[in-house]
């Protein structure tokens, strides 16, 4: 048993209707889902592992079996065949008593329509899981109050759910699940019933809480953008089967089949893809120790107008412009430092593409990308940014380079010799 695995599902089938077992055999033999006679297959051969502290998103359209799947993970729907283990504890094929014990201590759930007890106050709702665990009133109220405060509902403890807005009710639902202090949290379309703005706020709060508390979260959604935003890994479901499991970027850049590809077509790439995933190797890079002459040579060879300056450990210092280095060389200086400008504008590697546009516009060079130790790990030319948004990052490599402008002196010469009057305009226009 691997300790890093919080939940493990293997070969899960859920068939509703008569002759469920026979239907599973048929499915295994390759019978299509719609030719099972009276039985309805909701989940077919689902296997996956969820690591501790991971947010695992199961995504699919309605009717894809995702809600059934999540209910099999805590035994609300008993599996037809297959097994589920939570922290090494089997959920399938166990006694009702043992199953209740597992639900009390290992796995809690947040529901789409909140499922709060309307006749109880917020604090009693939050303490509900603890009450079932058998904790005394004083203690559970104290614990529940802490969690209520964490989700931002302090001051609402004695209200009833009906007096709260949808977003707040769901925070009560979240608090109830958190208060039970289980390792695994199941969230069934938890934010789908909320307004878009509130949903976004809840997503951020969930991510924040997850960073703080390190829970393992299994999140069901039909909203691809939501899946991409909060998921560490995503399982895409279709017609009861899991068709692909991967990180958001893998799903987006390397869809397993046409269905997934179609599905991800309208996702907002700018929000999912990160700087890291589209950056190119940085070539115009000089070390602080290198002299102006070496820097100028490099820029000439790479045919660029500037270069990033880094320390020996590749941590970024700034950038230089060819003209300034040119002046230094002319003056005979051997120190590059006077030409280094500190405003390099590099962005962290995990920045979403959406947040790269403005820095990219402001940067004189291809936008620098740094890792968490400030080391320059790559650059993003504007053309690469555009190509990534278009869904084909590779297009940047083959993109025809922008035609270089003619050297200014040549143009000036020509214009002066041909039309004397137009020269001034031409210069101004530059």
């Amino acid at each position, binding site marked *: 048993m691997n300790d890093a695995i919080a939940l493990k599902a293997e070969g899960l089938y859920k068939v509703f209707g008569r002759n469920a077992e026979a239907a599973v055999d048929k499915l295994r033999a390759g019978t299509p889902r719609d030719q099972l006679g009276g039985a309805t297959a909701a989940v077919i051969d689902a296997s996956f592992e969820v690591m501790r502290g991971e947010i695992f998103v199961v995504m699919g359209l309605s009717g894809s079996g995702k809600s059934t799947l999540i209910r099999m993970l805590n035994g*609300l729907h008993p599996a037809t065949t297959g097994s589920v283990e939570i922290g090494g504890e089997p959920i399938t094929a166990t006694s009702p008593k043992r199953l209740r014990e597992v639900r009390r201590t290992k796995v809690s759930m947040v529901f789409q329509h909140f499922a709060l007890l309307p006749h109880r106050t917020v604090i009693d709702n939050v303490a509900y899981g603890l009450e079932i665990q058998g904790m005394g009133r004083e203690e559970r109220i104290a614990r529940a109050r802490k969690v209520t405060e964490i989700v931002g509902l302090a001051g609402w403890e004695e209200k009833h759910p009906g007096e709260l807005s949808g977003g707040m009710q769901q925070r009560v639902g979240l608090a109830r699940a958190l208060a039970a202090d289980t390792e695994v949290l199941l969230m069934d379309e938890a934010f789908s019933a909320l307004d878009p*703005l509130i949903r976004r706020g809840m997503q951020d709060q969930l991510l924040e809480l997850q960073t703080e508390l390190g829970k393992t979260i299994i999140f069901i959604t039909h909203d691809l953008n939501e899946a991409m935003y909060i998921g560490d890994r995503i399982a895409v479901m279709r017609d009861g089967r899991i068709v692909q499991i991967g990180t958001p970027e893998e799903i987006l850049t390397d869809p397993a089949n046409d269905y997934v590809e179609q599905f991800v077509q309208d996702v907002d790439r700018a929000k999912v893809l990160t700087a890291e995933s589209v950056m190119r190797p940085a070539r115009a890079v000089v070390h602080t120790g290198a002299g102006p002459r070496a820097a100028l040579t490099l820029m000439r060879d790479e045919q660029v107008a500037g270069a990033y300056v880094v320390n020996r450990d590749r941590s970024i210092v700034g950038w230089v412009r060819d003209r300034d280095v040119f002046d230094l060389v002319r003056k005979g200086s051997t120190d590059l430092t006077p030409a280094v400008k500190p405003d390099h504008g590099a962005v962290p590697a995990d920045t979403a593409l959406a947040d790269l546009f403005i820095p990219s516009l402001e940067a004189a060079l291809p936008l620098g990308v740094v890792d968490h130790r400030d080391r320059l790990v790559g650059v993003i030319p504007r053309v690469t940014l555009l190509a990534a948004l278009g869904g084909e990052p590779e297009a940047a490599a083959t993109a025809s380079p922008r035609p270089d402008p003619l050297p200014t002196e040549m143009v000036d010469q020509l214009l002066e010799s041909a039309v004397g009057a137009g020269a001034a305009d031409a210069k101004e226009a530059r």
Partner: protein
Amino acid sequence: MDIRIPVGSWIKDFFDWLEDTFSWLFEALRQLFIWMFDAVDWVFATPPALVVIALVAAAALLARGWRFALGSAIGLLFIMSVNQWDNAVDSLALVLVAAFLAVVISIPLGIWAARNDTVSAVLKPVMDFLQTLPAFVYLVPALGLFRIGVAPGIIATLIFAMAPGVRLTELGIRGVDKEVVEAGQAFGAHPRRILRQIQIPLAMPSIMAGVNQIIMLSLSMVVIAGLVGAGGLGGDVAQAISALNVGLGFEAGLSVVVLAILLDRFTASFGKGLGLYSRWRRAAVAKKEADEQARFDAELVEVGGPRRSPGAGGGGGSL
């Protein structure tokens, strides 16, 4: 063509067999019913009528408010003034005993049916049968098994009135939001606990509507029970029919109407939050919650918690 299925004689044989085999049981039940009836009757018949009226009016005030208190006092005074008080008390006792028994039987049956599809499938046609069979028909075997008097009246009333209690209880529990029940399961609650803490409280409006229906049907049966010597207002109505006494018929009939309105309004007010009692209770609960909240808030100020004060939108934030 002469086909005669002897259903009648089969059923007669069945009841004869019942009577022979379980006569001890029916005798015991008879004694129990009579004892219960006498007890309730004693409670209402012993004090002077005016005292009872005053108490009922006070109860009405607590349950629904002053208008209902006034109305019930006027109605009961009317019964007293047409000289039907004793009959009305008898009928009331019979209704209360029969309805109590019907509630005690029908609510558990309804809960059972809600949790078990087979039980539900069996009970549904049985309830349909009991409700549609003409009420007089119950009376005949009831008479045979319990002899003349209050007991057959109670048993016939009970059987007739049970159906809506079972149905509405089942409906109410099945109608409880599935997700909320799942929440109970997901946190590892025992099914009995889910029933007690989630299903029954949330199904309460429906269950109370069932209780209300039971009482109303009991009252309508009471008059019919008068035919088998159960006495009360029904007895006078039966007497008025046989003697073609219009005056007596109406006096007894109007008294039944007064009783019906009283019982309906009383039972319909359960859980509706009307009347003085609910107001007191609400105030007490609100005060307790406000105190608790104030205590929480005060503690928060002491520790200087980062997020507080919902009034300022601290709890809401952007949400």
